[in-house]
């Protein structure tokens, strides 16, 4: 008997030695986490009823979190254990060989920035569709006056829509996917400064997302106070709201760790010849974004912490009746979230600054001005937060300085627009899909920026605050800006990332349907807003019926158009043309290596002797010259 046990243990040990190190550490980590969860769940279940400590919503919330994460982990651990103990190879853990080449490495802890970028890419794209679904539910409700869903469900839809789109699509796509994939390549190095922390940033995203969405399992539903979560409404939220706060906290730390990684990579790991003023603008944009993430996101983390304490333990930080101050939430939240809107747009500007010179065959107009404008926006973005609070009970005299800083921030933004126009002027313009989306950003962002300036002036904002006009503004900057740039980025970098070209005709159809759907959906919002339709209500005055129906039709067209993108990508894997190393004749360093790049990005370290955008100059190398026949 004892002998059997000893052989079994030896058997286990032998297998343990065979596991790759990361696999062993990973399994140990999972197991430890699992034990902690089971323990906490146990403790919660046994907390005596009715004591001051046992907060029923808190218990529900923790229970749900533990449950959702626990079941997933338990399955993974059990499979691993059985497979390992029986001596077969663990199917969840790729072999070293597979880690280098196979598809399966995308489902495991990889430390290669390209793999992590692609993990971010598909994850964000997945959430884009979930968030889009929520948006369509909102538009379904609003297509006609009267109620289809309950107001309570409606509140959950728009809250989850914005939360998912912002925290799980735009930010992880721009910074996580494109930033991760492109930055090390663009500065000519082999990986990020901290590859393991990079993997950690990514692997914090799925749990954060699961926690937020676990609200669907709670009896009272998900968070429903909007993505801005203002008290006192937010304090009534219960389990769903607490899950939201916890999830945002987790996603916040993912951003912070990622930001730190980008800064160190950009500051310390540029290859020879890439001095600061030879960095492509996308890299500058990511660097500025990283500063905002590192210095802004902790403010959000602190804010959600305080609100969590308030709901979970009744600490009255935001409870006016007990000496708290609900307005404090708005200050702390916007101190993060205004910089956060620039986290969402600066990388988009960066992508467009990459694409426009390549498809105009001209050097970027005013490179330094663009760099300074990017940094200037970064600094100013910390000084404008109270423009979201003009209509609140904040000291009225504070409105004037914040109005001024808000107007001021439009200046560097305007500089960028003129630089792009200057680049386009007299260029040899190629209207391929990435360029179409970039031009869409330039034009749509002008509309969004100008409506922003309207909202930034106090008297106008007092009329328009919390109406559909604000919704129009945010969609012109976030869809017309960030999302269009993301699509442009997908068409531009897809060949590099996956080694296949996307189909141009499908791309153009995708573009035109999106562009039309977008404007049909969001232009009328300016009108309904100015006429007085408030945001965040499930029903409206019948006077707004026609405009709302138009908006909903546009929204469904826009939603449908995105299926073409998916089809185009899936098709590319089957029959797409194999991508050459440099399909667009671009000059930035990621195009100097194969598509997709080898494990360490470049065969040999590079020494760079040219600027990133010296297109069309006699002195530059052949691929920088205009393509004959263009």
């Amino acid at each position, binding site marked *: 008997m004892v002998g059997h046990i000893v052989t079994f243990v030896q058997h286990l040990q032998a297998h343990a030695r065979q596991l790759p190190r990361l696999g062993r550490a990973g399994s140990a980590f999972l197991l430890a986490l699992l034990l902690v969860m089971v323990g906490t769940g146990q403790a919660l279940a046994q907390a005596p009823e009715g004591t001051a400590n046992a907060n029923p919503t808190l218990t529900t919330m923790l229970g749900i979190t533990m449950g959702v994460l626990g079941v997933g982990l338990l399955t993974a651990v059990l499979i691993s254990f059985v497979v390992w103990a029986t001596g077969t190879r663990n199917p969840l853990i790729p072999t070293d060989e597979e880690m280098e080449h196979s598809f399966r490495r995308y489902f495991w802890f990889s430390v290669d920035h390209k793999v992590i970028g692609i993990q971010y890419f598909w994850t964000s794209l997945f959430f884009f569709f979930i968030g889009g679904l929520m948006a369509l539910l909102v538009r379904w409700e609003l297509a006609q006056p009267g109620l289809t869903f309950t107001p309570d469900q409606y509140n959950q839809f728009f809250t989850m829509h914005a939360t998912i789109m912002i925290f799980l699509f735009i930010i992880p796509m721009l910074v996580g996917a494109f930033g991760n994939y492109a930055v090390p390549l663009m500065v000519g190095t082999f990986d990020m400064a901290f590859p393991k922390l990079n993997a950690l940033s990514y692997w914090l995203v799925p749990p954060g997302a699961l926690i937020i969405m676990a609200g669907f399992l709670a009896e009272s539903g998900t968070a429903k106070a909007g993505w801005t979560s203002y008290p006192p409404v937010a304090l009534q939220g219960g389990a769903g709201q607490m899950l939201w706060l916890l999830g945002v906290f987790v996603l916040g730390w993912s951003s912070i760790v990622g930001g730190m990684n980008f800064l160190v990579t950009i500051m310390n*790991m540029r290859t020879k010849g890439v001095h600061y003023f030879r960095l492509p603008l996308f890299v500058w944009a990511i660097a500025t974004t990283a500063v905002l993430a590192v210095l802004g996101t902790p403010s959000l983390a602190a*804010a959600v912490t305080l609100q969590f304490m308030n709901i979970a333990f009744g600490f009255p930080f935001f409870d006016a009746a007990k000496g708290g101050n609900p307005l404090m939430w708005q200050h702390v939240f916007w101190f993060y979230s205004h910089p956060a809107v620039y986290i969402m747009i600066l990388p988009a500007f960066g992508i467009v600054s990459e694409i426009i010179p390549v498809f105009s065959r001209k050097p970027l107009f005013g490179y330094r001005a663009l760099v300074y404008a990017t940094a200037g926006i970064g600094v100013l973005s910390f000084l404008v937060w109270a423009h979201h609070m003009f209509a609140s009970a904040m000291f009225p005299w504070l409105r004037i300085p914040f109005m001024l800083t808000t107007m001021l921030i439009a200046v560097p933004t305007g500089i960028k627009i003129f630089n792009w126009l200057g680049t386009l002027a007299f260029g040899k313009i190629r209207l391929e899909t990435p360029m179409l989306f970039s031009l869409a950003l330039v034009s749509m962002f002008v509309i969004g920026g100008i409506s922003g300036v309207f909202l930034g002036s106090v008297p106008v904002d007092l009329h328009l605050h919390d109406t559909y006009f604000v919704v129009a503004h945010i969609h012109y900057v976030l869809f017309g800006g960030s999302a269009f740039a993301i699509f442009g980025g997908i068409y531009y970098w897809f060949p590099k990332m996956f080694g296949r070209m996307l189909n141009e005709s499908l791309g153009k159809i995708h573009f035109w349907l999106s562009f039309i759907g977008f404007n049909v959906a969001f232009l009328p919002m300016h009108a309904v807003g100015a006429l007085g339709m408030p945001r965040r209500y499930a029903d409206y005055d019948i006077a707004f019926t026609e405009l709302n129906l138009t908006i909903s039709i546009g929204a469904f067209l826009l939603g449908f158009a995105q299926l073409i993108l998916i089809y185009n990508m899936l098709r590319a894997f089957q029959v797409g043309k194999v991508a050459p190393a440099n399909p667009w004749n671009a000059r930035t360093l990621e195009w100097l290596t194969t598509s997709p790049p080898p494990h360490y990005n470049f065969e040999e370290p590079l020494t760079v002797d040219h600027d990133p955008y010296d297109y069309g100059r006699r002195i530059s190398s052949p691929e920088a010259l205009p393509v004959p026949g263009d």
Partner: protein
Amino acid sequence: MNPEIARKFIANQETGTGVSNDKLGMWIFLASEVIFFAVLIAGVFVLRLRNLEDWAIHKEAGTATFLATVNTFILIMSSVFVVSAIDAIQRGKEQMMKLWLWLTLIGGCIFLFVQSLEWAELEHGLHEIGLPAGIVGGAQESIFASGFYTLTGFHGTHVAIGVLLLIYVLIRAHRGDFTPRQYNALEMWGLYWHFVDLVWIILFTILYLL
């Protein structure tokens, strides 16, 4: 990761900041921690201004200034120990380094222990002035107590994480990983510990002294 390839690339880098990746990363991370605590502290401080009376009453009843002073002293000393440990390894005195690190560990543990005593004490204090018992229960009516638990709680969590990381550093020290030229993990950990110490000094000032 293939160190040979990495080395080849690193040899061909543009001069960066001159600070090692690890140290630069740590500084950036600490910058974000500073903002995190700054916002928490500022939030509580602003609320204090609206609740001067509550603050005064509960502070009187709910803090054990003597214990906290002892704790402050211990934490400051532990920071000194870390400096000594780094100094020792720089001069190649491995045994001394281990000794200093053990002293730091003891300091950290005492801090946590005293802190938990104080939390119990505070509960008692609140109870005496007629508020419901239970750590959480008592704080529900008071901005001071809410702020106190939140701030010291988050700081305490940082100390606890610091202690866990120190155990890791100690294990490496005993494995002989640190030499006068290579003691990166120790140095990084030291930066973190000094930060935690600094936060405590601020908390001590605003929660106990002012």
